[in-house]
C-alpha cells in the first residue's frame, strides 16, 4: 500500500506460495472462503498444493511461534464470471475467528456505495518507501462515482468496477496488494465493496484507483459457497 499506515484489518489475508512467500492479498468472506483476483493465479484449475492463506498477524513475515497466526492450506480455486477477474479460494480447514481474524460482510446484490463514503484498503505489498513494508498497511480513501471516475478514464470504467477519489498525495494499492479488500464501513460493520486489481501506477496522485465492484458478483459468491 502506498501512502498507508500500519493498521488492523482482520479480514485481510496474505496468500503464500510454496516457499511461504507472500504474493497477493485476499479477503476472508467466510470461515472457509477467501476472495481474491484471478491475476494472482496461473489458471482456474491451478494445483494449489503447498499454497496457503496466512491470517491473524500484522507482520508480513511473522516469527515461527507467533500465537495468533493461522496459516491454512488452500484446497480449491473457483474462477468467477469471466469479466469479474475474481476467484474464490477454499480453505482446507475453517479459519478460527478471534480479535485478529474475522470475516467481512458481503454487500447487498447490486448495491452502489454512495459517493464520498470513506473506505480503506489493506495489504502487505510494496509501499514505494512511504511506509514500513514488514507490516500490514492500511490507507483510507473516499469513494468516487463511476460517472465522475469516467471523466479521468475517458469512459473506460465499467459498471462492474468502482473507483476511489484522487487525492493530492500518492495513495493506493501496489505490487502484491492485488486481490486484497476495499472495505467500507456501514454503521459498525465493515463490508467488502471492492477487490484490488493490478493498476499501471501505484498510488498515482491526482488519479482515482479502480477496483472490481463486489456487489455485482455477490450472487456468484454465495452460489459458490452453497454449491
Amino acid at each position: 500500500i502506498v501512502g498507508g499506515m500500519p493498521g488492523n484489518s482482520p479480514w485481510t489475508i496474505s496468500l503464500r506460495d510454496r516457499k511461504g512467500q507472500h504474493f497477493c492479498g485476499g479477503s476472508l468472506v467466510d470461515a472457509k472462503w477467501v476472495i481474491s483476483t484471478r491475476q494472482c493465479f496461473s489458471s482456474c484449475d491451478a494445483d494449489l498444493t503447498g499454497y496457503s492463506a496466512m491470517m491473524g498477524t500484522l507482520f508480513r513475515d511473522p516469527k515461527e511461534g507467533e500465537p495468533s497466526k493461522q496459516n491454512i492450506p488452500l484446497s480449491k480455486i473457483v474462477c468467477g464470471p469471466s469479466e469479474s477477474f475474481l476467484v474464490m479460494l477454499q480453505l482446507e480447514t475453517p479459519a478460527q475467528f478471534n480479535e485478529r481474524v474475522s470475516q467481512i460482510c458481503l454487500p447487498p446484490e447490486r448495491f452502489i456505495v454512495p459517493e464520498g463514503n470513506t473506505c480503506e484498503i489493506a495489504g502487505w505489498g510494496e509501499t514505494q518507501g512511504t511506509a514500513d513494508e514488514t507490516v500490514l498497511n492500511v490507507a483510507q480513501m473516499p469513494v468516487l462515482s463511476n460517472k465522475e471516475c469516467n471523466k479521468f478514464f475517458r469512459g473506460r470504467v465499467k459498471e462492474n468496477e468502482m473507483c476511489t477519489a484522487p487525492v493530492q498525495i500518492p495513495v493506493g494499492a501496489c505490487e502484491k496488494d492485488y486481490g486484497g479488500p476495499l472495505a467500507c464501513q456501514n454503521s459498525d460493520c465493515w463490508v467488502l465493496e471492492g477487490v484490488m486489481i493490478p493498476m499501471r501506477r501505484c498510488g498515482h496522485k491526482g488519479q482515482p484507483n479502480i477496483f472490481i465492484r463486489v456487489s455485482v458478483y455477490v450472487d456468484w459468491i454465495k452460489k459458490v459457497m452453497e454449491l
Partner: protein
Amino acid sequence: YRSPLNDFQRSEGRELVPLKGSVDRVRPLPGVSLEECAKQCSESLDCRAFNYETRPSVTCKLLPWIRDTNSAEVKRNVNSDLYEKKDYLRQCTVGKGTSYRGKVSKTVSGRECQQWWSKFPHDHRHTPSAKNGLELNYCRNPDGDPSGPWCYTTDPERRYETCGIPRCEDEVCMTCNGEDYRGQVDHTVEGLECQRWDQQYPHQHIYQPEKYPDKSLDDNYCRNPDASPVPWCYTTDPKVERQDCRISKCQKTLKRSRPTHTTYCFRNRGEDYRGKVNETTSGIPCQRWDAQYPHRHPFYPQAYECKGLEENYCRNPDGSEAPWCFTSVPEMRTAFCLQIKRCADDIEAEDCYHENGKNYQGTVRKTRKGITCQKWSLNTPHRTKINPTTHPHANLTENYCRNPDGDRHGPWCYTTDHKTEFDYCAIKQCAGEKVSIVEPAEKVEFTECGKREDRVNMKAR
C-alpha cells in the same frame, strides 16, 4: 547421517505381490519402524524389496524379488508402500557399476553372455556367491573394471566384453537447466550421496515431495525444483547442505520459436511469454537480465538459454505465478508484470441468450472452458442441489445449459470435471441487450460479520 532408505526406490500406495507358490518366501516383521525395515533388508543377502504396511497394523515384509513378470507383480494398496533396491531396478550404472544387479545379458556387440557358474566356453575364476551377485548370465563387474559391467561371452572367439550399460549421468540427458530431469543420478558432482527429499535430516528443507507434486521429488534423486542452473540435491554430509549434480546435456536441437510461445498475452504462469513488455505492473522499468545492478541475481541469460532472458523483458524463469523482472529501483527487488494480459482461455461462444438466459432452451452443453456438462438428473460427479425435482419447470433436460436459479451471469451447468462443481456455459448474451447491473444505494443492516476492535489511543495521565 545416511539413511538405509537411500538404497531403495519408493512406490507410494503399492505392494509387491508374489505370484503363486512363492508366498512362503515372504518374511514378515511386525511393528518394525520404516528405517529399521530398510536396514534389515539392506543387510539381508536374500532381500531385494520390502512392503511396508501401515494398516491394519505396522508390518515390514521382506521380499526376495523385485517387480518381474516371472516372480512378482506390483498392485495398488493404499495401506502399503513398496521399497525396491535401486541396484536391481536401475538400468544404468553408478561409478564403475560394481553394484549393478540388472538383467542385461548381452555385450555391447550383441554377443550372449556365458553363465557365471559355467566354465565353458571360457574357463575363469569367478565363482557365484550370494554376495557378489554373479547371477545367471547377467552383466556384472566383480573386478571393478573401469569400463563397467561385463561378461564372458558364449562366443569361443571372444573371451569377454563390456556390456555398454550407460552411466546414470549419461542415461537420461537434460535440456535447458534440467527442471524436467527425471533420471536416477543420486550423487553430486563431488560424489556425495544425496539426501532423500522425503527426509528432513541431516538438512531441514522446504521441498517436501507432497508440496511439489509436479517436481517429481522422488527418493534421493537429483532434481531441480527451484529453477537453479542445474539439478541438485541436499547431501547426506551434514557439513554440505546442497550440491549440484553432473548430468549430461542433450544434443542441441534446431533453435526455433516453440509454437507455445506467446508475445502479446501469456498462458498459465507465463513461462512461455516472449513479448517485449519491460515494466512492472506499476510502471517501474525492469533491470536487464545480463546486468547485476541494482540487484545481484543468479539468472544469467547464458545459464538459462531456454528462458528467453533478453534485454529487460518480463519473463518467468523460475515458475513464479506470472512473468516478472528485477526492478530498476534498489528498494524493490522483483515485481510481477501483471499488466500483460492473460490469453483468453474461454472457448468461443456457441449460442446467445436473452436477458439473463432464464428462458434459454438451446442445446449447448459445454462450459466456457470447454468441459462437458453433467446431466441434471445425475448425482455424479457432483451431487446436485438444483435438479429436475427441485426445479420441475426449468426444463432441466439432458446436460443442456440452463439457468434454473436466475443467475445474472447467464446459463450454467454442473460439470463433469470433479474439480469444478459448476461453471458458466459457452454462450454469450445476445448483442445489444446490456442492461444495468447495479442499483442505487439503500440502507442495509449487518449483524454478524465485518466486526473489528479498533483500539482508541488513550492519553496518558
